[in-house]
């Protein structure tokens, strides 16, 4: 019995010592700082994407077009939201990344003026850090929007964001946690338009099916659904007009590193030239409604557009 106790004591001590060592290791360095690890191979282009199905489709289109042009591509998809991958782009470990002009501009320069699509694009070019640039933007946009149900809009005669101040019932906003702190979030609604927001409910699926269902169920009244989302038309939702430019124009734009040479740039620009607003909604619809995989959607579209 004594030996059992001693054995157990030894085990407990070993675990405790191990834990202390592990914790000390954590405390001494910043575990998030990986340094500037470039991905080695000079002729491999790293294509990244947000953790958003539509962004992944666009990234896959870039990747397949580049592969068709003879480039070697390393896919780093579904990295996360902007907060997670922006440092990676700035650090040069990603070479091609589909982005959205206005949102990226606001992330880089919170006090940017914004404006029309072209004005936003120009400001974005100036705001980008050294070693990172943008190629031609596409006509396709996928904007943030404040979206309500058609029924809710009809009840209060809602047309644009400012008209939300006419709503007499409490408005609950739903969306990802980061929506609460974004420059167009609930705080901006109150400050700019005097709209009272009763509460915020986290629905962590990027304006996806859970968010849409919550709107339709009236669990939330106001949500951020991206304008290229096919759910808007299929669920009778209304993206409120934004005449004051609370949301910046969000054209799809490829962010690239210096490793992207003229040949690669030409290939990606050819893709952007054919990426229209309707195209993007159609591509998204193939994913949402037909459950097609990103690579299938990309191949189909590139073939149809004559780019493969």
């Amino acid at each position: 019995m004594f030996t059992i106790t001693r054995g157990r004591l030894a085990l407990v001590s070993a675990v405790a010592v191990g834990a202390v060592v592990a914790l000390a290791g954590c405390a001494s360095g910043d575990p998030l700082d990986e340094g500037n690890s470039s991905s080695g191979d000079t002729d491999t282009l790293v294509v990244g994407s947000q953790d958003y199905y539509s962004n992944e489709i666009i990234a896959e289109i870039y990747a397949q077009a580049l592969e068709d042009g003879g480039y070697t591509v390393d896919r780093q998809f579904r990295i996360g939201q902007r907060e997670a991958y922006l440092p990676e782009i700035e650090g040069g470990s990603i070479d091609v990344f589909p982005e959205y002009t206005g949102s990226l501009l606001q992330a880089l320069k919170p006090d940017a003026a914004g404006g029309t699509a072209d004005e936003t694009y120009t400001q974005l070019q100036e705001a980008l850090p050294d070693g990172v640039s943008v190629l031609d933007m596409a006509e396709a946009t996928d904007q943030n929007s404040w979206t309500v149900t058609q029924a809710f809009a009809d009840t209060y005669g809602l047309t644009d964001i400012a008209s939300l101040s006419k709503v007499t019932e409490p408005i609950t906003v739903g969306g990802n946690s980061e929506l609460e702190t974004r420059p167009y979030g609930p705080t901006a609604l109150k400050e700019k338009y005097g709209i009272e927001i009763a509460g915020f409910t986290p629905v962590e699926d990027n304006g996806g099916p859970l968010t849409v269902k919550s709107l339709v169920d009236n669990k939330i009244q106001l949500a951020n659904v991206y304008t290229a989302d096919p759910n808007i038309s299929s669920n009778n939702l209304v993206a409120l007009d934004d005449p004051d430019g609370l949301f910046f124009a969000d054209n799809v734009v490829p962010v690239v590193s210096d490793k992207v040479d003229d040949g690669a740039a030409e290939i990606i620009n050819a893709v952007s030239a054919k990426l229209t607003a309707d195209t993007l909604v159609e591509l998204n619809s193939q994913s949402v409604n037909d459950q097609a995989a990103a690579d299938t959607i990309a191949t189909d579209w590139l073939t149809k557009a004559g780019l493969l």
Partner: protein
Amino acid sequence: MNLFASAIDWILDPANYVGLNAIPLRLAQHLLFTLVTLVIASAIAIPLGYLIGHTGRGRSLAVMTSGGLRAIPTLGLLTLVALWVGIGVVAPYVALTVLAIPPILAGAYTGFEAIDRRTVDAARAVGMSELQIVRKVEVPLGLPLLIGGLRSATLQVIATATLAAYVADIGLGRYLFSGLKNRDYAEMLGGSILVILLALVLEGIFALIQRFVVPRGVSGRAGPGSGNAGRPSISANLPERSTAIR
């Protein structure tokens, strides 16, 4: 900057103790959510486990089902249920109850099975009804393993209850999601530390319960050679039926 130090700073920051996102409020929500989940799971799993343990029937079915339940990814189930019933606390309750049932169920029926058959037969021989056997012999003697099952369920639920914040404005998971999405890692780590502390406190409480609730003569911590050869011997760590020869 040292991440741990900033996480501790975050926990101690008075600004985090006011409003709707205050730490005490989130802690209370998390605790209440965990307790309610455990009560629901117990209400389902304990009677079922007792039935299986007493009759000896359906054991393999229970093992297979609870094994299957354990394999269900909680976040997937949560999303699926939320798409069905909508956002709010219902979906997390369902998903977490499914998570909590297997260990409680196993604790309940192994608790009965671990009892020396001679003890049960003796109870029957002195004229106890089946209900009396369950109430006066099997339930008290099976308690150490049941509490063990509850303890492990609690640990799993308290850690996984952070997922409730995926579709509802409750619990410590809010700090994790919002910290992750806003790259506020001090908040994220601070939230994790709070979850760990809560788990440790509940572990301590369960350790105390295990010590006091177990009837005399049945020690949950009785190891080999503790010298009670003639009495029913049950070990919380050994779910096998105790052998006749000791």
